[in-house]
């Protein structure tokens, strides 16, 4: 391995924009260093995540983003995974803690131990893949740190056994959505407008000695010195970026004695962060006390038609409103949901909307459902292509935003030019509001 002296010499000889320090992690033995790097790649999943996508993202991001100071601090304190390959669980939990702060205003301290040792991962310190960890957070959820504190002793030894509290299922916090982003513009859009992400990086010897600045891996071209070894794959929370410094700002899980109080700036394109792995996102945090506060509905015959001239017939009956579209037309149908934005001094959040409807043949297709709070579109479900008697259908609002102005549901319907009926019946529309 590279000695600190050799690394310092390389940095002096290069145009490096970062400084090295003999951090606690740099002083570890090689096998202990390797133990910290716990990303186990799911090759098929990675190939899917990194496949080129047809959509072109429009830049919609700020020049500088740091969620430690973006309408308040939404980054929880730096933790220490100690001698265990649990970096994926630390990274995934860090993003959920950030999103809980952004979405709910709750600064949570969640249990990495519950996620890593009690889930499908199993009670061991082996590595993991972020996609699997996020799936666990959507399903069984994760609990608060008090339910299962990270089992590390004073010497830094981790006991990888599941010892969650008895009522962990009642305390579980979940997310409703996680996805991958491989497009750089989309990453910045997300970080700018939604929240932090989770990233995977390739770790070389010099990374352990990171002390501050914008990290760029220093390549050694001297055949007479030891090669700088790639030790493995690691997972960090991306909390922002700087266009001025051309870097991602990340939170590590190696304690505050490493890097800039536990944080690092990684140069764009470095150590595989942009080229080899996607970013993972989390949102829609629900806590055990996210109870269904109100479910509000409005009858189908209150529906409003956007393009009446494209309608052959609209019949408002006691049972429902029945509309028949002209052949080869598209239309939008709108419901104004009765909305209590505040109940007993508490502003409610939007959980999901629901529709009770049917189409009488495949010539009437429910194409899209958009959900609004006033004039703000808060959820889009495009290309759903529903036909027939589906009756009750629920559409999630992933971020569960606080509601301000009144919920609108807009249903895009295509009426085709076939021989069947082009008739739709809207029976009712509603919305679940949560606290």
């Amino acid at each position, binding site marked *: 391995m590279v000695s600190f002296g050799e690394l310092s010499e390389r940095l002096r000889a290069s145009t490096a924009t970062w400084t090295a320090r003999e951090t606690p992690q740099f002083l570890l033995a090689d096998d202990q260093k390797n133990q910290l790097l716990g990303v186990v790649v799911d090759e098929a999943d990675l190939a899917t995540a990194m496949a080129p996508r047809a959509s072109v993202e429009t830049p919609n991001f700020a020049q500088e983003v740091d969620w430690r100071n973006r309408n308040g601090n939404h980054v929880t304190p730096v933790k220490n995974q100690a001698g265990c390959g649990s970096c994926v669980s630390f990274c995934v939990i860090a993003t959920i803690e950030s999103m809980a702060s952004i979405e709910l205003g709750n600064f949570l301290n969640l249990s990495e131990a519950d996620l890593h040792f009690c889930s499908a991962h199993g009670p061991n310190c082996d590595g993991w893949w972020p996609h699997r960890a996020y799936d666990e957070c959507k399903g069984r959820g994760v609990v608060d740190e008090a339910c299962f504190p990270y089992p590390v002793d004073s010497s830094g030894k981790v006991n990888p056994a599941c010892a969650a509290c008895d009522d962990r299922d009642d305390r579980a916090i979940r997310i409703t959505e996680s996805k991958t982003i491989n497009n750089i513009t989309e990453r910045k859009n997300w970080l700018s407008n939604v929240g932090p992400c989770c990233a995977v990086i390739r770790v070389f010897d010099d990374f352990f000695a990171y002390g501050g600045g914008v990290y760029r891996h220093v390549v050694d071209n001297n055949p007479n010195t030891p090669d700088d070894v790639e030790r493995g794959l690691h997972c960090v929370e991306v909390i922002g970026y700087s266009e001025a410094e051309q870097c991602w700002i990340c939170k590590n899980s190696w304690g505050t004695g490493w890097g800039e109080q536990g944080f690092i700036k990684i140069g764009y394109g470095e150590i595989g962060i942009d080229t080899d792995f996607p970013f993972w996102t989390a949102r829609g945090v629900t806590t055990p006390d996210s109870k269904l506060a*109100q479910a509000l509905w*409005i*009858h*189908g015959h209150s529906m409003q038609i956007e393009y009446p001239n494209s309608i052959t017939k609209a019949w*408002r*009956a006691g049972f*429902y409103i029945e509309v028949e579209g002209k052949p080869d037309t598209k239309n939008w149908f709108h419901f104004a949901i*009765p909305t209590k934005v505040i109940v007993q001094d508490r502003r409610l959040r939007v959980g999901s909307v629901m529709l009770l409807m049917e189409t009488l043949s495949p010539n009437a297709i429910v194409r899209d459902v958009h959900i609004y709070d006033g004039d703000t579109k808060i959820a889009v479900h495009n290309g759903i292509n529903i036909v027939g008697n589906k009756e009750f259908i629920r559409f999630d609002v992933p971020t569960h935003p606080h509601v301000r102005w009144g919920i609108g549901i807009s249903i895009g319907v295509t009426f085709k030019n076939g021989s069947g009926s082009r008739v739709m019946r809207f029976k*009712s529309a*509603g919305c679940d509001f949560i606290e």
Partner: protein
Amino acid sequence: MALAEAMWTHGHSMQIEYPDNIAKVRKAGFYMEVEGKPGTKNWFHFAIPTTVIVNDKRLSADSVMLLFETLSEDAIVRDVHIFDGDARIASHNGVNLTGKAGFQRFKVPGQPKVKWGIGISVGVTFDKGSGARKIKFKSAGCDFIS
């Protein structure tokens, strides 16, 4: 059972089932006034804002209420039907209300749990007499109990 919610909607939100049978519609701040053609029947529908669940507990429909008047005996509120989504949960036929009926309450037998959103459908007959065939709908509401 306690009265958990009483939800109302203003009269000018009313929807007309057969617009071709209407001679005139006036949506005013006070009410919605409709004049029927002579010798016609029509249905007028109110979508009541419906809280089906409060704090994880589903409510029940107890009764609906109407605030209306007809301007002569040639406009007769004949029937009142109550729906939950597309399910009819109460029928009050042959009520035959005219004049300054004001506030009228119609019970929902069995007080069923509410699922989809309450609709009130008001059946009106417009006779061929010499009186005004006008009705003013001022408001409609529903009492929900828990």
